[in-house]
């Protein structure tokens, strides 16, 4: 019961936010929080629930971003038409990359995902057709509403809110399905899960593909909002890390963890940049870095794990000896 009250408060606040804090910058901040929450929630499916820490998720983000901008820049279509293309690209790539890499455990998997992302970034940087280092631009002057090029952040805000809701619903549905059950088992112990008959490889691959599809949607939305993508902003490793950090900071493997992480980090970054960035002393990142370090040190399960007992007791007994 209490859960439902909390949920309705959060939903009510999310809907009312742009009306309560209505300056263009605040509305944009809200939209950005939702956008990153989509990306981090998508990552959460494979990174949080399946425990496969992908540090190269930007490659799927880039699929979406390039598909959306490509649809406009190469075919004169609305960037919206790029979304399905981006999903197909991302899912296909996830399948190709996932089969060999998901066999790897722990850090090897993380390193492999970084290598894939960096390879893609370098290839795109050297591909003239994809704009190479210059990147691709979207419509600066919208031709019609489908170009999704708005002055106000308000339409973006509600669009992102809707897509975030869908993402979270899919995640919730997944965790309560057989797949979620398998994923939890795999995360606890892949060997045990296999011996109990869970199709570990297949489950991980499906989760990876689902995560890739949703991440590409986030990438497409990102490119549409900023009207631009280049190899650094669409395929740069820092985006991966940013997504991962938001999920981890809020609480990986928890439904609302990524949203909490995004709701803290995006404003923190933008506001500290607005206050301190102009001084040119790098203080923005000193503050940002210090906060991340403190959270990692004192709340390693993410901020949301403060509220959930399960993960706290897990940290306690993780003392390195299994009876």
């Amino acid at each position, binding site marked *: 019961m209490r859960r439902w009250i909390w949920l309705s408060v959060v939903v009510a606040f999310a809907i009312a936010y742009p009306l309560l804090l209505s300056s*263009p*910058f605040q509305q944009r901040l809200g939209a950005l929080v939702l956008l990153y929450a989509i990306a981090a929630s998508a990552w959460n499916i494979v990174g949080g629930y399946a425990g496969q820490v992908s540090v190269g998720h930007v490659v799927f983000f880039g699929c979406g971003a390039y598909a959306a901008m490509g649809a406009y820049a190469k075919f004169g279509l609305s960037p919206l038409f790029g979304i399905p293309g981006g999903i197909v690209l991302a899912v296909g790539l996830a399948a190709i990359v996932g089969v060999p890499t998901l066999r790897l455990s722990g850090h090897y998997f993380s390193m492999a995902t970084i290598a894939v992302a960096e390879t893609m970034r*370098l290839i795109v940087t050297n591909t003239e057709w994809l704009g190479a280092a210059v990147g691709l631009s979207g419509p600066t002057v919208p031709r019609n509403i489908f170009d999704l090029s708005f002055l106000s952040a308000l339409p973006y805000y509600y669009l992102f809110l809707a897509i975030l809701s869908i993402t979270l619903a899919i995640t919730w549905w997944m965790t309560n399905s057989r797949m979620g059950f398998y994923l939890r088992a795999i995360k606890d112990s892949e060997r045990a899960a296999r011996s109990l008959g869970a199709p570990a490889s297949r489950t991980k691959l499906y989760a990876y593909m689902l995560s890739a599809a949703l991440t590409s949607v986030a990438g497409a939305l990102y490119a549409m909002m*900023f009207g631009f993508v280049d190899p*650094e*902003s669409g395929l740069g490793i820092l985006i991966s890390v940013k997504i991962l950090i938001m999920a981890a900071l809020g609480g990986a493997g928890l439904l609302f963890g990524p949203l909490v992480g995004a709701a803290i980090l995006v404003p923190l970054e933008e506001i500290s*940049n607005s206050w301190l*960035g*102009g001084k040119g002393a790098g203080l923005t990142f000193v503050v940002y870095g210090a906060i991340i370090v403190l959270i990692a040190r004192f709340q390693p399960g993410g901020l949301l794990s403060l509220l959930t007992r399960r993960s706290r007791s897990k940290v306690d007994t993780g003392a390195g000896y299994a009876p």
Partner: protein
Amino acid sequence: MTLKHVTGLLCAAAMSLALTAGAQAQDKVVKIGVIMPMSGGTASIGAHAKAALDVATDIINNAHPELGNFPLAKNAGLAGLGGARVEVIIADNQGNPATGQNQALRLITEEKVAAVFGSYQSGVTLTSSAIAEKYGVPFLNSESVAANLTERGFKWFFRTTPIATDFAKIYVDFLADIKAQGAKTDSIAVVHDNTEYGTSVANTISGTFKERGQPIALDVAYPVNATDVQGQVLQLKDKKPDVVIMISYTSDAILFAKTMQSLDYKPAVLLADDAGYSDPSFTKAVGKISQGVFNRSSWVVGPAGSPSAIIADMYKKKSGEEMDDTVARQMQGFFVLADAIDRAGSTEPAKIQAALKATDLKPEQLMIGYKGVKFDDKGQNILASGAIIQLQDGENYVSVWPKANAEKAPVLPYKGW
């Protein structure tokens, strides 16, 4: 930091007391938003720009009779707005197009700036100027060279800097001139990184040379922020081009200089395309082993007592660095913007836009070596131009071409160390 602030406030207070008569005018402030990379790999650019804009606002806001007829210097504040002061609000773009756009929005809607100035990286300029365009706020760019910036049909975008096509013409003419003086310039190699700056400038240069009937013999591309450039230098050493044109940021420029020395490679003519080679860090780090490198620059310091020499001095006092081309182009761009606001006599965007369109500055009104400032329909300064400078003593560049305003004759061949 705080002490500086306090003293700054005290000075401001003392000044306003002294100028009680003009107090009302002094209260009026014109805010200009500036978007620069203040962190990340190109943060030194932002730091230099910040110092330069401090000097520029000092010149505009206070009386500087020593600068003679230099626009906006003589009296305190903008005369056209009753002596209003100019205030610069700097935002950090972190080298990221998205951050740049967010900050442009904040500057326009929260800080209510009259105009936006920036943003160094072409990608960031692209996204941040799109916001200014949507809000109908003038955006002046003084250093991004990507050709497509002025091809978007924008009404609020103005660019003062010369672009790749301008540089390419300069190089063609310069090489023709030194060839006439007996230098060998038959085969040309272009070395560039794979950033948007490196590739687009390299392509334009290649295209221009091809049109003039002298195709580029060797194109050496390398990834930006390289850990090692031996392979590239050996390639050059192998193919022995007469002229090497370098298009590099500071990090790679330093690495190239060191590697060329260690591999004992010297082309007859080493010609750099601004960027890293203009960074004072470059001359400090490897100037002594890069003697005789030519560089493209629009910045030429005039004789002692000339406005450009005085401004260079002020900048050096402020930042501790020599004025370089990038920062000079930024400062000039800022003066053009401030001049337009002054002439508009208003902070109303449309009036500033109209004033920018009507800009017609003559060379003697500039601190930099452009032939003037006059914008075409796309917002590009058609009078932007540049000169060739040379690092003859390994410490300071001197202008060597075109002959008309050259301080010294070009020295050939490349000396190195």
